[in-house]
């Protein structure tokens, strides 16, 4: 078990005006799993991802990563933990225009002291796996959206984190670039046994994962496992669950 969440609650607002977004969520994620989190817009997917990844604090409950309770960690230790053990991909590519693709990918490594050869090797590995090696010297505004998001994914993987958290990584991509990225993510998941937790409202994107968790009204509504099925069958089941849930593919 790489990630274990127990009774996660999260509310926003002040004493007078409180909204509880997460109302008690339990989940377990195994090492090497590729998990999707789905739900209607505003159902708390981003909130859940942010607390699981320690970007935000829970209101109550506990989150264990490799047995260690991150809800009890001090800020400094938490920051170190995020830096070393987690990788992030967001809907916005979040690349620095002033850096080349390669420099952007190496950003997480440039923060720590690492040998040059080692840095170079890490870059080669992820850039090749994500098919952007020859773009290394270009700047973000010289490449396509799909390539930018693969750059962003390479940056998330480059320091070999234990878990990758992705929030709507395909949200800004056309369907071809999206499937390109998802194939790469899946490949990375299989080849390097990296654990991926992805928020999406897109059933196609979710069908690339091995398990889908549906959120509704701040609780886990249901869980689907792909098992040995083909991707198309899994997709159909996701679609039908989504239509029962309501809010099919609508996201602001």
């Amino acid at each position: 078990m790489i990630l274990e969440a127990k009774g996660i609650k999260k509310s926003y607002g002040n004493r007078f005006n409180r909204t509880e977004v997460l109302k008690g969520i339990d989940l377990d994620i195994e090492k090497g799993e590729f998990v999707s989190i789905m739900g209607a817009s505003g159902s708390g997917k981003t909130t859940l991802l942010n607390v699981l990844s320690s970007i935000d604090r829970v209101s109550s409950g506990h989150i264990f990563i490799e047995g260690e309770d991150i809800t009890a960690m001090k800020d400094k230790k938490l920051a170190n933990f995020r830096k070393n053990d987690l990788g992030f991909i967001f809907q916005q590519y979040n690349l620095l225009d002033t850096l080349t693709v390669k420099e952007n990918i190496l950003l997480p490594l440039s923060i720590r002291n690492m040998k040059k050869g080692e840095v170079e090797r890490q870059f080669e590995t992820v850039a090749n796996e994500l098919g952007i090696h020859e773009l290394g010297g270009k700047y973000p505004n010289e490449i396509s959206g799909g390539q930018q998001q693969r750059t962003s994914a390479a940056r998330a993987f480059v320091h070999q984190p234990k878990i990758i958290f992705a929030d709507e990584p395909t949200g800004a991509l056309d369907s071809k670039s999206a499937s390109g990225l998802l194939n790469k993510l899946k490949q990375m998941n299989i080849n390097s046994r990296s654990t991926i937790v992805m928020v999406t409202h897109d059933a196609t994107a979710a069908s690339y994962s091995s398990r889908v968790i549906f959120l509704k009204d701040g609780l886990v509504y249901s869980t689907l496992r792909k098992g040995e099925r083909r991707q198309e069958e899994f997709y159909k089941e996701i679609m039908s669950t989504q239509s029962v849930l309501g809010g099919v593919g609508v996201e602001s």
Partner: protein
Amino acid sequence: MRNQFKFIIIIALLVAILVTHLFTGTFSLTWTDLLNILTNQASADVRLVLFEFRMPRILVVLVCGAALALSGLILQVISKNPLADPGIIGVNAGSGFGVVLFITFISGSMSQHLYALPLMSFVGGLLTVLIIFFLSFIGGAFKSNIFILIGIATAMGVTGFVYVFTSVFDETQMEMLNRYFAGNIWGDTWPFVYISVPYILIISLFVFFRIREMGMLNLDDEMLTGFGMNVNKEKIILIVLSAMLSSLAVSVCGAISFIGLIAPHISRMLFGQNMKILFFSSLLIGSVLLTAADLLGKLILAPAIIPTGIVVALIGGPYFLWLLMRARQI
């Protein structure tokens, strides 16, 4: 290559302004005077004008222009808003309030309290920004755009307060205050150089070591948090540095706005987004702008002198409007 070329032009421009500044004024100097200075044969008059009047003023204006520009650049980076300026968020109003308190409660002429006035101005500016800063934490996380809005509101409120005080001012007191708000470079003697320039340089050095973080602040806060950066702490450090820079500058120069807005903006147009280049070009362009405004104020209506802050506002106001209109179009 092209960037180096641009830098050379800016530096040449700055040198030209500084040299003109040295030689012109009520008592103009000639090349012979300069030669005499260099060979140590100059008359006492010439030496007095050059070393006691012109040099300290030029140094103060040069360094304060750079400080205001850097202060603006920092605010723009953390608020992700290219229109942020230390004057807009209450530094000038707060400093003005410090000045008003000084005028109200400390009687006597300025020369008796050489340091008290800039000190109160500095404390006023810094305190105002810090208060705004803590107010913007209300409701949980620090939000830079809220910070700017609260800053603008507080600036207005504090300015109102200032005018309440002025209702009991006599003519001399009023004149002192107006001198501050017009951005008269009042601190143009060596003692003011000593109390401002070294600190501005030291603070700028601190900022220099955070250029990397400033560049990264372009990314979303979540991403930076993911990188292990303590985003709030980083912003707090930068805001404090920025507030210190601008408070120091206005405490010896008087209320000067727009430099912090315009200098980084011109820098971006000339050099793009690279933070290291922006750091140095903003410093230089800030110096160019303030020394040029000071020079113009001295020359346009000579022998009358237009306060530097007014010259800056006359140029900066339309520039700011032009920026706003352009932002609308995009």
